[in-house]
């Protein structure tokens, strides 16, 4: 647990003698000005007459030192309750002793009494604002206590003190996420990656953070804009990423029903059909997109993919030629083409056909990408060079329309680099920020795209579209991070873990297990791996295997809150609700803001008939109840407790949420075979 580790590190850095370098004038002042000190001395003298041994002991300063050292000793030995007692005694003697305040705070931190820890550390920081460790701890603790607004100033202060402090940056990112400030959160994640000397770790985590941002935006979008095409499009993309083509198609269809003319929807649908091997339907969709906009590069690219799948090299070249005509810049960055898996014999045949076609940039592009898929890198490189030569040698577009005097709008003309340059010179309102973001997206300059899109404000149609593209941008940034990891460190344990997670997402259990096992061979004592494997088993109802892995994870690191939560989930799933309690309770002690654990603990209590215990846990999870199930359980609990009005309110809220959220959304995303629950 981060803050506890921080406390330990902080403690180990404190030299024992530093706190008693007080000046004589200081102590004279204390003696003169603080009657309580005199009183203590008097009491000690009285005590010494009654208990000579005690008297031999000490002046108040000595006693202070004794208490303080005893507290430190207790901290070092993990006797945190005793440490609290000792530091309290020290503070009773000298309430201004900052060091004692700090240590008391650390002791409370170690006891997971975050509110008390925050209280004492904050007090210390008011005297000594430059203490890095306590500053970070207070920031992190405020987050745990559900007060990100209070956490923010401490975390910013911590970064002022030490810009390289990764814990502070991570916590700050969480703060920003809580405020839906995705731009600032992303910046923090980038900085953390820069600071991490272990690049496999850095890219892995950055990739995860970007995908998490993307998913947050997608879920948020699906929720906020659920009646609009964007909401369904968000959901459709989430499903597409999970290779659930039919489910994605269903969402895209709903999006089209809501907004038949929305740009890109037919293309998304076409791509889903293409991946589902429904080529005719795919072609229909691409052509429908082109009917709406004959210059839609993605649609032409989709057609080219389709034509390759059919072995129609000439047709594919024609489509790629169209893309080149519309936007050479766009084609130049499509290094991921083709996006469909082609059998090797089909690729070879296509290459042979393409070689017979007239020279041109489209042909160079096609051959370069096809040679790359067959691993003929030298040939691929040569073709790329030829393509680059075409690209660089193309005539710059005229800024005058034929016979006219006006400049052509570079954005409308799909001259994306020029468009971006032009937009950057202007004061941008939201529509233009959106356009800038989309332009950078097309150029695959994803960081710049994210920067622009994240600044579109409010909950509006524009924000819906901006959120959508921002989600896709973060997704692309995540993919880039992963690509760097795969290219540079393909045999690292993180690379294997990444592959495992990808397989798991696509419900390919067998391959996921293989990759996890490979990762574990490289890092047998990595608790995160055991935890991830435990979750995979749990999600696939292999309870015994899940339990084994999660227990290993907790043996290696007992403070892993997610592992604790998963153990709780395991037992709740097995209906051994009593056994779930200690795990969930501990998870919440370590991380009080863990809503899932709170919700699940509430469920366990409901199932055990402990309704009075269930209510506060469910109430805590209620704000994040998207599908009404938490409120339904609250209804049951209130009803059993005889709180009729509260029960009715909870039931009404549950029904509202169910009506508006449609439980199948959850099941659709979670991929349960049945609602549930899927889901």
């Amino acid at each position, binding site marked *: 647990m981060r803050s506890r580790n921080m406390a330990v590190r902080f403690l180990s850095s404190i030299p024992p003698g530093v706190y008693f370098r007080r000046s004589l004038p200081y102590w004279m002042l204390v003696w003169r000005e603080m009657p309580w000190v005199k009183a203590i001395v008097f009491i000690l003298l009285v005590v010494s007459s009654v208990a000579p041994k005690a008297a031999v002991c000490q002046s108040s300063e000595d006693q202070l030192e004794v208490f303080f050292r005893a507290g430190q000793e207790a901290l070092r030995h993990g006797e945190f309750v005793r440490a609290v007692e000792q530091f309290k005694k020290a503070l009773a003697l000298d309430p201004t002793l900052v060091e004692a305040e700090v240590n008391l705070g650390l002791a409370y931190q170690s006891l997971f009494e975050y509110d008390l820890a925050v209280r004492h550390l904050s007090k210390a920081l008011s005297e000594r604002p430059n203490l890095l460790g306590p500053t970070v701890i207070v920031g992190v603790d405020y987050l745990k206590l559900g007060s990100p607004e209070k956490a923010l100033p401490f975390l910013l202060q911590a970064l002022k003190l030490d810009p390289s402090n990764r814990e502070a940056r991570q916590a700050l990112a969480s703060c920003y996420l809580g405020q839906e400030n995705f731009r600032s959160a992303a910046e923090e994640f980038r900085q953390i990656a820069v600071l991490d000397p272990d690049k496999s770790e850095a890219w892995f985590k950055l990739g995860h953070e970007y995908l998490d941002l993307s998913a947050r935006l997608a879920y948020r979008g699906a929720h906020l804009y659920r009646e609009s095409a964007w909401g369904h499009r968000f959901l459709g993309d989430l499903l597409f990423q999970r*290779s*659930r*083509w*039919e*489910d994605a198609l*269903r969402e895209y269809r709903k999006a089209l029903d809501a907004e038949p003319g929305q740009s890109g929807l037919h293309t998304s649908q076409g791509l889903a059909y293409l991946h589902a091997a429904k080529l005719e339907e795919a072609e229909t969709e691409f052509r429908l997109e082109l009917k709406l906009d004959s210059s839609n590069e993605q649609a032409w690219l989709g057609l080219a993919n389709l034509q390759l799948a059919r072995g129609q090299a000439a047709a594919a070249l024609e489509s790629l030629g169209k893309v080149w005509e519309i936007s050479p810049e766009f084609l130049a960055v499509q290094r991921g083409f083709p996006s469909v898996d082609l059998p090797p014999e089909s690729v070879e045949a296509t290459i042979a056909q393409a070689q017979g076609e007239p020279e041109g940039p489209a042909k160079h592009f096609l051959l370069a990408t096809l040679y790359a898929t067959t691993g003929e890198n030298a040939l691929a490189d040569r073709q790329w060079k030829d393509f680059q030569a075409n690209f660089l040698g193309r005539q710059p577009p005229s800024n005058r329309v034929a016979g006219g005097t006006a400049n052509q709008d570079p954005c409308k003309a799909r001259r994306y680099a020029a468009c971006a340059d032009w937009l950057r010179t202007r004061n941008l309102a939201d529509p233009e920020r959106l356009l800038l973001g989309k332009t950078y997206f097309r150029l695959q300059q994803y960081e710049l795209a994210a920067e622009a899109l994240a600044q579109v404000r409010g909950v509006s149609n524009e924000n819906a579209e901006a959120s959508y593209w921002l989600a896709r941008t973060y997704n692309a940034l995540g993919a880039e991070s992963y690509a760097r990891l795969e290219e540079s460190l393909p045999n690292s344990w993180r690379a294997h873990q990444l592959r495992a997670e990808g397989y798991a997402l*696509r*419900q*390919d*259990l*067998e391959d996921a297990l293989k990759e996890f096992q490979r990762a574990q061979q490289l890092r047998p004592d990595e608790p995160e791996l055991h935890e991830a494997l435990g979750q995979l088993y749990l999600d*696939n*109802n*292999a309870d015994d295997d899940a339990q084994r892995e999660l227990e290993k994870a907790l043996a290696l690191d007992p403070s892993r809150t997610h592992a604790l939560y998963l153990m709780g989930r395991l037992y709740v*799933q*097995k*209906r051994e*609700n009593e056994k779930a309690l200690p795990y969930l309770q501990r998870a919440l002690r370590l991380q009080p803001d863990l809503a899932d654990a709170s919700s699940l603990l509430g*469920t366990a209590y*409901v*199932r*055990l*008939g402990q309704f009075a215990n269930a209510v506060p846990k469910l109430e805590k999870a209620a704000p994040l109840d998207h*599908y*009404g*199930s*938490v*409120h*339904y*359980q609250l*209804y*049951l609990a209130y*009803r*059993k407790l005889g709180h009729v009005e509260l029960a009715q309110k909870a*039931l009404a809220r*549950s*029904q509202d949420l*169910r009506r508006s959220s449609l*439980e*199948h959304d959850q*099941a*659709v995303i979670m991929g349960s*075979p*049945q*609602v*549930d*629950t899927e*889901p």
Partner: protein
Amino acid sequence: MWISKLSLPPALGALLIFTQPLSNTPQKLASQVRGSSSVQFDNITRAAGIRFVHYKGSKGTSTILEEAGPGVCVADYDGDGWPDIYFVNGRDLYNRGVSARNALYHNNGDGTFTDVTEEAGVPGSAYGLGCVWGDYDNDGFPDLYVTQYGKNVLYHNNGNGAFTDVTDRAGVAAMDWGYPFHTGATFFDYDRDGYLDLYVGGYANFGPASQRNCTIGAKIPTSCRPAVYGGTPPVLYHNNGNGTFTNVTKVAGMYDPKGLNLAVGAGDYDEDGWPDLFVANDGIDAYLYHNNHNGRFTNVAMEAGMALSMSGGAMAAMCISLGDYDNDGHLDLFVSDFQESSDHIWRNEGKGAFDEVSDSVGVTEPTRHVLSFGGGFFDYDNDGWLDLFIANGHVYPEVEIASPGSHYKQINSLFHNNGKQKFIDVSKTSGDGFATPYAGRGVAFADFDNDGNMDVLVANNNDPPLLLHNRGGTGNHFLNFKLIGTKSNHDATGARVRVRTYGMSQIREIMAGGSYLSQSDLRAHFGIGSAKLADTVEVFWPSGLHHAFRNVEADQFYVIQEDKEQLMLQKFRRPVLRSTPKG
């Protein structure tokens, strides 16, 4: 007990009418072991002459339709005292020339059954899903309603062994809204006018142009879940009393276009004298339509606490069974659910609310790794406590590839109610009837051989059914009541019987439908343990009439007729047994 394997068709030879029941005599019972001996169930399907095999008719990967059925229904259609069986079948939807039809099996009273479908004229007319028996015209013979993909069919029982398709005349084809996928149905007299009304459930909006298949696991094609298609509305038909029905769905407040109805069952859960309707929905909240006494219903499932599971999630609810498992006088509820979701039991608190007790009574863990369909409460050992039988079987034949360790065909479950709020899984020790896995679907309970022990009949998807004979042998006593309404509907659907013995009080409510697209024998069977007498037997008729009988002798099959204040014995016609074999 089963007498012999002779299978004389009832048309051949004279029939003897016996006035004595064929149960064991009290003397014989006295010599049997008392107490908690394990009851065994034997698979006697073939021995009983049942040759029916369900045909799901799939081509390649199944569709949702082809994995849904079938149900099975039990009733004594010819009034000879022996419960008969109607099996529902699929059809060849791909013009491959495969012939398949439903089947009516006549119980010969000697341990065997005969397929009389042709002469009865009840083959069904389309892809069959479920069925329900009900004497809708109160002529004393149960009529048969079959739910199908397409028009449903109502067969009027002519009383002479034959039936007539009266669907169009009656107006109950259930294509009122244009949706073909019909599932569970039940007859119940919702307005208490003495005529059985009919509720027909609507399921997924699956048609010829619908998506046929989806994927599970890593892109393995399989049938799709119902949420892919969305739901369709049910139909509530009011019986006009003249052989015709009127669609009153909207007036009654039951028009629900998103319904994914599977099992439906009617029962008076709040004891206000009016039957309410429970609807199991597949993937959305379950419904409890409270009868408002004025021809209208209100869905109170959420308020009653049984719309969702205890954790607030929707169920893939297949089965509805109502029974008082804890003998507190209130109808409790069993609902089956999907694999990894566990099945559910709710205890009726008696104040219009239900409390899910699945975990505490012990059914959740044993049902977690199976996908449960039909079943319900029945007292198999006659100890006075309702036990539980569940038919299991997956809906994805491909599940074994996608999820190693999961099985498409599954063993059924039997739970013994120990009378202390616990259901104990005794499946593994209950005989060869639990040895073979099937894709189990509909279940019906009946004492087919009238030996005082409840038997079980399971309809399996694309397989022969399972007729499980209960060997009995516990030494416990029973009572069996056939109710005949005269002012109330003839089937006495909606009547409640209460039996008190030695301080134990049990109730049974006569209800059609239930289980999964199926129907059990309407006779009320009570196990009464070691008691040889029931202190009181009371009947609460739908008409409002009340009968009470005292010191009722055990181990008898009684008839209680609404207009007669006396107990009579049921009559069982038996075939003549030849003393020498033919030829």
